[in-house]
């Protein structure tokens, strides 16, 4: 039930993807602790920067909901003006798998946008005719994520020397990393000051292999597999989860055998360009 698409709405909403409320913000922070051995406690703090929406909450014309999404969805209505702790039994929620949390403001009755002075001037002429209905989302916050089982959530690669491999380089997909093994230490460029960037060509190969494997393992059909990144469930496997998260963050919506290079471009922040400038740097240093 988590919403993170950059979609257009038929009416103004407050979210990080929308410019409808130029001065607005809706930010969520969460602290988790264990409450005895049977439950988790989620301490919620949020900032809703919008007097208009605040007022709707105060007048009971809108409601605040929190949504937890792990293997399935759990949601609860929050009292926006009280201390916000949500306790959930471990029978109901697990945090070893990936968990996403988001809060929403939802309309409770029909009302007009006529007096909303926080909207972008674009709406000036039409807002008197804009009515929102019960059940419409008015604002959604950032998504807070927990990667319970990942040892190193932001590390994608692991490189090491293994003299026993039969090829010069061997790329393996480990539980949580793209593992790049080198037969010789020199292949890792240990002597160069920009060695990190020099290894980007290996990273490219690793990403290519990992994304193809991801595609064939998680795609539904075996021939010409295709994955709709916005629709699939979060992958079980740690490495696939990292790739999935990365693609989502970079707004990749589709992965197929044809667009792997474009996907790498989107998720990797110009690594070929950086690799190239590292070589140029070496050349300059020599001359």
């Amino acid at each position, binding site marked *: *039930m988590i919403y993170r698409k950059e979609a257009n709405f038929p009416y103004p909403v407050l979210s990080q993807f929308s410019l409808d409320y130029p001065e607005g913000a809706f930010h969520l922070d969460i602290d988790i602790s264990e409450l005895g051995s049977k439950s988790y406690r989620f301490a919620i703090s949020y900032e809703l920067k919008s007097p208009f929406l605040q007022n709707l909450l105060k007048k009971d014309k809108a409601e605040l909901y929190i949504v937890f999404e792990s293997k399935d969805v759990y949601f609860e209505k929050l009292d926006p003006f009280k201390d916000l702790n949500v306790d959930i039994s471990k029978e109901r929620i*697990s945090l070893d798998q990936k968990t996403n949390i988001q809060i929403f403001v939802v309309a409770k009755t029909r009302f007009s946008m006529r007096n909303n002075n926080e909207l972008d001037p674009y709406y000036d002429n039409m807002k008197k005719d804009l009515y929102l209905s019960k059940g419409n989302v008015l604002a959604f916050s950032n998504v807070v994520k927990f990667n319970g089982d990942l040892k190193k959530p932001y590390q994608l690669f692991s490189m090491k020397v293994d003299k026993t491999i039969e090829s010069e380089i061997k790329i393996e997909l480990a539980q949580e990393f793209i593992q790049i093994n080198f037969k010789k230490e020199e292949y890792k460029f240990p002597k160069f000051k920009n060695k990190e960037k020099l290894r980007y060509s290996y990273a490219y190969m690793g990403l290519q292999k990992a994304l193809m494997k991801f595609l064939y393992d998680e795609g539904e059909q075996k021939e010409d597999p295709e994955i709709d990144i916005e629709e699939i469930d979060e992958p*079980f496997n740690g490495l696939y989860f990292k790739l999935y998260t990365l693609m989502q963050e970079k707004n990749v919506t589709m992965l197929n055998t044809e667009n792997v290079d474009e996907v790498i471009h989107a998720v990797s922040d110009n690594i070929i360009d950086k690799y190239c400038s590292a070589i140029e740097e070496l050349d300059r240093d020599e001359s």
Partner: protein
Amino acid sequence: MRVRLLKDSYFKEDTLYEDFLKDNIRENVKYISNEVLDIERDLPVFPVYMATGAEKARKEDFLEAFEVIENHYLGLDREILMSQKFWHSLLLIHFRDYLLEKYPQIKKSPSEFNRIVVKKFDWENYIYKALLAVQYVLPNTVSPQKAKYYRLIIDNLDVFNYIIKYKIFRNDIFLLRVLDIIDKNDLSKELKAEIHEMPGDERFGRRVIFEMNKEYPVIMSPMLDNALLEEIFLNHLHNYQKKYS
């Protein structure tokens, strides 16, 4: 009961199927890790595959699965109950004899084995379906109602499947509200009916859930009250019925 857990690599072993048939898994270090789960109760067997067979037998199997899960599994942490490795460990090591007797087709081919025993633990897996059914119904109902909802799920399996397929609808409150609407308006048959004019196996119930998925979050259907949800649900159904019948 002590559950011995498999190594993470069990999935990749080419010999898994053969070794299962030969009863060569439970003592084999190739598959078994040092990890164990000590659970202070018995974890009995129950039907894990309800895709084939006569309708009556399938319904009975579902009810049996609900009952066993309710009485023996519920109350374990979700971390355990939602773990594919936990279930595959139980099936491969502890349920082996039962599975071979109940589903003799496993002996015929590895693909039957993959379908019944080491099936991915997601909405298409029958253990997963039964587990969510119990977890969603039980905490929200009292005794006579419980049986009613179990029956509604079994009688409306197609809609149930589509609700737990979409991540945004995989929720107890929403499921029960939809079942109430179906019950109140006696919609089982209509929702199950195929839409012959559409390609693939499309049914009216699936299209209603599909439309609500499309509308989310402009209309946050899981959070609506019963009356408004009913209105929206019936509206989508009538639109499709007008167009296709």
